[in-house]
């Protein structure tokens, strides 16, 4: 069954809290990882690895650099799980 935006956002917020200590309520769709949430490239890798475990969607490094906002990740997860 496909996940809703809200389900992915909630799951992603849990991951970001665990990896980077950012409170879940700050993880909203329009936020950028680098500028708004202060998440660096290595933490993005950790988030990608945790997202693979949680959502079953692989995010390779060359795709990761294009995911700038929380919404970008939500869209990527939805798109990839739909095609899987």
């Amino acid at each position, binding site marked *: 069954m496909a996940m809703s935006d809200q389900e992915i956002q909630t799951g992603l917020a849990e991951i970001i809290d665990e990896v980077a200590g950012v409170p879940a309520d700050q993880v909203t769709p329009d936020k950028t990882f680098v500028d708004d949430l202060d998440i660096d*490239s*290595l933490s*993005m*890798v950790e988030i*990608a*690895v945790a997202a693979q475990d949680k959502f079953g969607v692989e995010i390779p*490094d060359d795709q*990761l650099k294009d995911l700038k906002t929380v919404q970008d990740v939500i869209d990527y997860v939805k798109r990839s799980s739909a095609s899987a």
Partner: protein
Amino acid sequence: MRQTEGAAGARILAFGGYQPARVLTNDELATMVDTNDEWIRSRVGIASRRIAGPDETVADMAVNAGGKALAASGLSSEDIDLVIVATCTPEAPIPNTAATVARRLGINAPGAYDLNAACAGFCYALASASDAVRTGTARNVLVIGAEKLSQWIDWTDRSTCIIFADGAGAVVVSPVNDPEEAGIGPVVWGSAGDMADKIYIPDRNGFIIQEGQAVFRWATTALHPVAKKACERAGVDPTELAAFVPHQANLRIVEAIARKLGAPQALVADDIVTAGNTSSASIPLALARMLERGEIPSGAPVLLLGFGAGICYAGQVIKVP
């Protein structure tokens, strides 16, 4: 054909470490490339590192560390019959570093070879030394990890020049008659040649090039199973480890592997903070300094885990002297 008769087991008698005198701080690096102290500390966990003098060679550093380990072991140079130097930054392809180091330490005509498994080199060399003692092809082995990475760094590349450094660490490996006294567990080693292009030096005039994100992803996902397997093969549960001393690649890699290892009681080496990433030297150097500070009780089990370019990796549990 007659075969050698080996020892029941092998153990480490003593450690020795050496760091060059010159301290290179983050603030000083910030005058050379676009970076700053906070950025370096948060990305790699390094506050300062040591850099060899212009005339200081890998062999010089190896002799220093090896001499300390030999002196602390209580053995004399005549007792050593094999010298292994793990290095990926030798002065030149020939002569090898080990024979030169042996001569300078007054070790007469030992077997002598260099071993290149990059940042996994020390764990490979320690396993080889243990095997040599256990099969009887050597009795007492001097194992040294020594690197002068500073000569292979592009000092305008801020992604690598903040990480790598110079230094050496050494151990003396000797036989034991009772397997219960053995102090070097079975090695778990391997490689991933498909990732050869993730950390490499393109040619003899080139510099270290690293795909940081790819290496970070691999190290934080592929290595904790190797670490756990090394514990399992030694018959030591991770919860029994006194310390975990992985290659000091990046403090965030060290901490990520430590979290996944399941050994919350173990002291985790963080020597990288003041030593930088010294490749094959980082594990024995970190342990030498931890033992000097009395942080690990004698006889306690410690997990070592080397990993780096190749990609090569190796881990084993040891008992510290």
